[in-house]
């Protein structure tokens, strides 16, 4: 078990190096002169150009630039936004909680509805219920997420008026940002309506973002359960006269969940991609929207920093999921040395 952990952790280092390399290369591949971009419309004199080139270290050969870059990164310095001039890492820190809140809500939604759906579909195999659940799941991940969001906005915000259209909370409320998680902060604030507002703003984006993970989890759970239910040890459990609920809920589920956990973990990576679109549609002030804006505004330090940071987060989450998997899979946990 320990060995398993150590191997996994040690793999992080080359991956991290790879990500920094990727981020570095990507941004330096953008056509155009960054100094010109900085200068914008005003134009720039040749001397000033050379000066800035030197001060940014852009006149050095690429490998040196890369090394400098890595040094900065390890120091926590990811540069400054060309637009706001705020440090990239600071902006990320401010906006990330919004994305996390949205992602957690989305994954909760996906698991709470997806797991039972998959279990029921497996146990009631080939019935209308099974086909219905699987059909819905299939439709769920065949939809373009941005369209789904728009559709739900039309339905719930415009037609029914149940939910707001955009943002995290009604502008009327002024909530002290203690944790950065609006749900928690609004509970902490004295304003009773704040929490409700935050919640109602969160629901629709969470549902939209969580739809594809829900579909994937439901399908995965079903196929995993079906496979487990066909195993010999389930027959043994039944032969012991155990109640069906126990056979399915304890014996089958315990084993069926193992691959599902991995799938849930992998969805985290997806959530960032999906968050980009969801945040754009709902004007949710998170990292995804920040990145899209940075592309449109040619804010390259932000893009570079954002890619690096998100890549790092996904990497860490994957590691945690891997370790979790090692913990719950009895064959790995109890491997004789």
């Amino acid at each position, binding site marked *: 078990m320990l060995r398993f952990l150590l191997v996994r952790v040690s793999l992080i280092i080359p991956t991290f190096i790879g990500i920094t390399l990727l981020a570095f290369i990507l941004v330096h591949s953008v056509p155009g002169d960054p100094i010109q971009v900085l200068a914008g419309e005003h134009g720039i004199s040749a001397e000033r150009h050379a000066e800035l080139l030197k001060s940014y270290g852009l006149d050095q050969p690429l490998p040196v630039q890369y090394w400098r870059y890595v040094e900065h990164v390890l120091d926590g310095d990811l540069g400054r936004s060309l637009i706001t001039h705020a440090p990239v890492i600071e902006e990320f820190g401010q906006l990330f909680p919004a994305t996390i809140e949205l992602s957690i809500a989305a994954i909760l939604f996906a698991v709470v509805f997806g797991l039972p759906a998959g279990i029921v579909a497996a146990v009631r195999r080939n019935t209308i219920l099974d086909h219905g659940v699987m059909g819905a799941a299939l439709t769920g991940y065949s939809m373009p997420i941005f369209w789904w969001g728009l559709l739900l906005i039309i339905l719930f915000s415009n037609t029914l008026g149940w939910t707001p259209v955009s943002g995290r909370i009604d502008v009327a409320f002024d909530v002290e940002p203690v944790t950065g998680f609006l749900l928690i902060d609004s509970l902490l604030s004295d304003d009773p309506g704040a929490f409700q507002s935050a919640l109602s703003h969160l629901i629709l984006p969470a549902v939209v973002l969580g739809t594809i993970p829900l579909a994937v989890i439901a399908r995965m759970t079903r196929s995993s359960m079906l496979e487990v239910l066909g*195993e*010999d*040890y389930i*027959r*043994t*459990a*039944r*032969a*012991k*006269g*155990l*109640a069906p609920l126990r056979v399915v809920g304890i*014996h089958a589920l*315990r*084993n069926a969940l193992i691959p599902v956990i991995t799938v849930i973990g992998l969805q985290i990576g997806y959530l960032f991609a999906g968050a980009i679109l969801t945040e754009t549609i709902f004007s949710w002030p998170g990292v995804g929207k920040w990145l899209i804006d940075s592309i449109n505004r040619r804010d390259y330090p932000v893009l570079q920093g954002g890619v690096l940071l998100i890549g790092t987060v996904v990497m860490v989450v994957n590691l945690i999921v891997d370790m979790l998997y090692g913990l719950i899979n*009895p*064959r790995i946990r*109890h491997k*004789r040395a």
Partner: protein
Amino acid sequence: MALLEIEDLTVSFATGRGTLHAVDGVSFSVDSGEVMGIVGESGSGKSVSMLAVMGLLPPPAIVTAQRLRFDGRDLQTMRARERRRIIGKDVAMIFQEPMTSLNPSFTVGYQIIEAIESSSVTSRRQRRHRAIELLERVGIPAPEIRIDAYPHQLSGGMNQRVMIAMALAGNPRLLLADEPTTALDVTVQAQILDLLLTLQRERNMALILITHDMGVIAETVQRVLVMYAGQVVETQAADALFAMPRHPYTGVLLDALPERSIGAARLPVIPGVVPGLSDRPSGCLFHPRCRFADRRCADLMPELSFVETARVRCHYPLGTEKGR
């Protein structure tokens, strides 16, 4: 009154190409403390019939029987909850593949205690104690340590012993053993069989031993049921059967035992294959592979008839005037 009474048990599956009778009109009964063997090749329906008795066949299977009683109680009309009070307790079953028949995510102790839990009301410590006792009884060394082991940490033979311990937890009056030794090493096979028979004697448990290996049957059972392609083709006392098999199929099964061919240049082989769904013969199901078959065999399905103490499904039973 017999402990287990089965009359005209039929298990059918509706497949894309027609109805398959995996078990066709099987009847027999088992008394308390009796040891019976069911012999047949793969596809004979021997396992499926026992699974049907236990109620372990999945929905596509359709189980019908004229009579299906355990201890006088009708298993067919019983409600599921009632049935669960018998299965695993009074009637227990162990299976062929011990390595996959135990849940890999739980310790063997947990799984045995589960079986104990369902049958009696005792404290946790007592249940654990009983589990350790059972492990010891089935011959597992250092049971107080092994109880917390996971199945993949134990060998095949040990896992099978765990299965037996689990089966014994409810003090069964009838134990069904479906090919308990087939997946094990040869040396371990003898040990497990020995264990089963010892336990049977100690507890006066009825034991049904299902196997494809005539050799396993030889020294162990009192009565034998021979099955072919879902039907019972012969049933007799073991000694009599080995001395004088009545059905040609039983005859060739015995001939195929290496012990009986000492001195011969080649081992006898049964030509042909067990009929599947698409190639069910007319008349007697064995006739395409039978040396003695004639027109009558191909036209008419023989009924089970008496020949001295045996019951045979053959137009020309061996060792009779009609036979050869």
